[in-house]
């Protein structure tokens, strides 16, 4: 490098060094406010930027109704065309205490004042109604400070500002049973929340959360400069009892929490991005439940005065219309009477019995179907379809349908009435007569019975001449008692089946009787009749006496048995007959001689005994058996 060049460079450096203090002598201070319009419960961000390496001690502005808190500071150094420009920014959160228009005075005497417009909280808190509804985070919350939960309006951030849950209610005064559409928003700071572990739920049991959408709407938003994923569920809230309640929703999730002590929070603030914090091992996962600030809800019972008898519990705003499936029908044809209930409200309580008892109509219980007009079923159309069948022809008007509900807007019961539908009912198809061609009728009448009518159209064979009712002509009409009064064949009618069954049984019985008799004839000694229990017992006693060779007992039993049998056959009491009468009555009996001999032997055996052989016992046993059982063998 030559000497001249060295001199020039030295001069330039000296100029730069000399100019630097001159540029720093007049620091500029600029202030920006974003957004300029917010709602109650929200916050705005005031950024004060000053040029220079150092900013003078900042005096926070004081505005009645506004709270200023420093939430961060940043420093920026730029080199432009060799000139070094440094700036320092201080970020303040501005939280309104009341609604109104606030003027924030200039930070320096020369700077312009800033105006902040704060709208009253309408409860909806939707993002569309404010530019930044989520800016209510406490100082350091989003940057990970551990100062605890913060609550403002509908937002409550978790301790480290990682998430929030919020429920938007359209109204705070409701009726029991009324359906209230609600939006539940869960904000998850990107990178801080690792998972959402369940659907939002209500904390109390005084309400039910119905039709919660399983797939929430997902929106990416910047809240206080931090990226948040906002999930929105739509649902319908239904209070179950009157009273004043604090309502809250909660949702389980897993977040990352810092492991540094609180005094090191500035380091985390400097790291800023959660990715950077994770990179340096500053966070660990933790399961928490995020809950929304409680919202007060006043539930009023439905009035009892003026309640219609057919009120089913429907609360909302409804309109009805009715129609019939067809304007014309025949007797017996089923028609469908429809009632359309449209509007918004608790459609699960929308019910009606439709028509119950209508003269000349047969009605059936209705069925209903619901078509949702939104994602949660708060709006839509419920259709009742009732099958009805006319039993009488003619033009008939069905009664008007009514539907009663409670309108929370007018705060009274309303009864909607439909236009009575008219239906033209024709005679039943089965009752309608076919239009017989006049020529056919005339010809037939002229020819009289027994003559074939006019020739049929092509394809059909001609009519039959009617000469009789189908019974054989050679039979006298007096004998034709089986003429077809029924279409059921004669052989399937009960009387005919009974006749055939009786005949079959009689034939079978006759055949069996003959076969048995023939078998008995071919087998001597074969009894034709099964002995009764008494006879069998007597025969057993006879056999026992015979085996014991006890003639006295044998004849005693035989005599008593025969006397009882003969007396029963004659229809008199055995005790009333004297011995002479027995002899007289046995005169005409086929076996009278044998019976008289048996009675004589019985008397002898009673007084003197009687010696008998086994052959004698068999003989007299057969005699007794023949008399008792009627054996002829």
């Amino acid at each position, binding site marked *: 490098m030559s000497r001249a060049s060295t001199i020039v460079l030295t001069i330039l450096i000296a100029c730069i060094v000399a100019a630097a203090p001159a540029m720093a002598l007049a620091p500029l201070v600029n202030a920006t406010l974003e957004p300029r319009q917010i709602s109650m419960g929200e916050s705005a961000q005031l950024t004060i930027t000053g040029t220079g390496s150092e900013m003078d001690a900042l005096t926070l502005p004081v505005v009645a109704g506004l709270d200023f808190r420093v939430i961060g500071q940043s420093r920026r150094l730029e080199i432009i065309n060799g000139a070094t420009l440094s700036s320092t920014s201080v970020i303040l959160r501005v939280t309104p205490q009341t609604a109104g228009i606030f003027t924030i005075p200039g930070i320096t005497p020369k700077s312009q004042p800033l105006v902040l417009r704060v709208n009253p909280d309408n409860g909806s808190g939707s993002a569309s109604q404010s530019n930044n509804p989520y800016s209510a985070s406490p100082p350091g919350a989003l940057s990970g400070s551990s100062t605890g939960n913060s609550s403002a309006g509908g937002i409550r951030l978790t301790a480290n500002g990682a998430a929030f849950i919020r429920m938007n209610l359209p109204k705070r005064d409701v009726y029991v049973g009324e359906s209230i559409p609600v939006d539940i928003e869960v904000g998850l700071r990107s990178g801080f929340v690792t998972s959402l572990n369940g659907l939002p739920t209500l904390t109390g049991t005084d309400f039910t959360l119905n039709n919660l959408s399983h797939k929430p709407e997902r929106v990416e938003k910047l809240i206080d400069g931090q990226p948040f994923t906002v999930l929105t569920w739509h649902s319908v809230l239904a209070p179950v009892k009157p009273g004043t309640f604090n309502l809250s929703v909660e949702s389980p999730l897993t977040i990352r929490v810092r492991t540094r002590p609180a005094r090191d929070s500035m380091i985390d603030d400097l790291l800023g991005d959660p990715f950077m914090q994770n990179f340096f091992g500053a966070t660990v996962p933790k399961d928490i439940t995020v809950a929304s600030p409680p919202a007060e809800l006043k539930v009023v019972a439905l009035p009892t005065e003026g309640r219609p008898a057919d009120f089913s519990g429907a609360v909302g705003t409804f309109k009805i219309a009715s129609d019939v499936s067809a304007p014309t029908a025949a*007797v*017996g*044809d*089923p028609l469908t009477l429809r009632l359309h209930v449209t509007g918004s409200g608790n459609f699960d309580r929308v019910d009606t019995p439709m028509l119950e008892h209508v003269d000349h109509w*047969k009605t*059936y219980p*209705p*069925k209903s179907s619901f078509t949702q007009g939104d994602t949660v079923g708060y709006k839509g159309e419920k259709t009742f*379809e009732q*099958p009805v069948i006319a039993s009488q022809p003619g033009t008939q008007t069905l009664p008007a349908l009514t539907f009663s509900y409670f309108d929370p807007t007018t705060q009274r019961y309303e009864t909607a009435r439909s236009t009575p539908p008219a239906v033209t009912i024709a005679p039943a*198809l*089965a*009752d*309608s*007569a*076919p*239009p*017989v061609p006049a020529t*056919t009728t005339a010809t*037939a009448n002229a020819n009289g*019975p*027994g003559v074939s*009518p006019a020739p049929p*159209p092509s*394809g059909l*064979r*001609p*009519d*039959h*001449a*009617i000469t009789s*009712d*189908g019974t054989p002509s050679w039979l006298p009409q007096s004998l034709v*008692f*089986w003429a*077809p*009064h*029924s*279409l*059921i*064949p*004669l*052989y*399937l009618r009960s*009387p*005919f089946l*009974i*006749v*055939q069954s*009786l*005949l*079959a*049984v*009689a*034939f079978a*019985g*006759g*055949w069996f*009787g*003959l076969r048995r008799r023939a078998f008995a004839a071919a087998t001597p000694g074969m009894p034709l009749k099964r002995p009764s229990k008494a006879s069998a017992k007597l025969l057993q006693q006879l056999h026992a006496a015979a085996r014991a060779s006890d003639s006295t007992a044998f004849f005693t039993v035989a005599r008593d048995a025969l006397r009882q049998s003969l007396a029963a056959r004659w229809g008199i009491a055995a005790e009333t007959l004297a011995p002479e009468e027995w002899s007289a009555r046995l005169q005409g009996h086929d076996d009278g001689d044998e019976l008289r001999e048996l009675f004589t032997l019985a008397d002898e055996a009673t007084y003197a005994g009687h010696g008998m052989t086994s052959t004698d016992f068999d003989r007299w046993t057969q005699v007794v058996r023949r008399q008792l059982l009627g054996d002829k063998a």
Partner: protein
Amino acid sequence: MNISRTLLATLLIALACMDIPSIASGDAQPESGAHPATTAPTTATSDPATTAPTTATSDPAATTNSASTYSADSLYNLGNAYARAGKPGLAVLNYERARLLTSYDPDIEANLRFVRDSAKVPTDPQSAFERTVRIASPTTLAWSGLTGLLLAGILWVAGGAATKHRGVRRGGIAIGIALMGLTVCNGMVLWPTLHAAVILTAATPARVSPAPMGDPVFTLPEAETVSMKAEHEGFVLVQTRTGKTGWVADANLAPVVPRY
């Protein structure tokens, strides 16, 4: 002889069980509750082609004529009248009813086939066996069957008591059994028709349940013949020839044999 007396008494009791009392009092009536137009019982000497359609629109009570009876020819002519009027359902219904009262009639079969073909309803071809067992009317076959029972029974019983003319007896028994068999076969052939119904309206929905709000599972064309399986509160469970089942409102069909 005891057996002879028993047989005679049985025969007398059997005759007493038949329609003699009702004939004597003259109160034989068609089935009540049936469609007056579809049953249309007519007097034996009237021409149904002219009288039945006109009486069909009259008071149902007036149509239950105490002296009226069914006639195959009357029902056949009534079927023709409905066919000419463009009502194939009612035409098929009356043809089917006529078939229950008469022997195999080519006219009835031809017109039944013609009407079904016109209504685009498939027709099952008649087998030779069916034509054979319908050689006579069911009434005639009923009496022939009873005659066969008497013949076979008497000869069978007599065979147990006598040994002469065994061949003649066996021949008589065979004839009696054949007559009874013919009657039984006729009943087997007609049995499905006795439990059948005819669809009277076009595109009749067959529903999954016996209720008007039941979902339709298929539709039935007019003049289709279906078999009835059950009834429940104004609906009939029907089965088509293809085996599909569904509930049909009884206003849309008419049973071949009117219900009591």
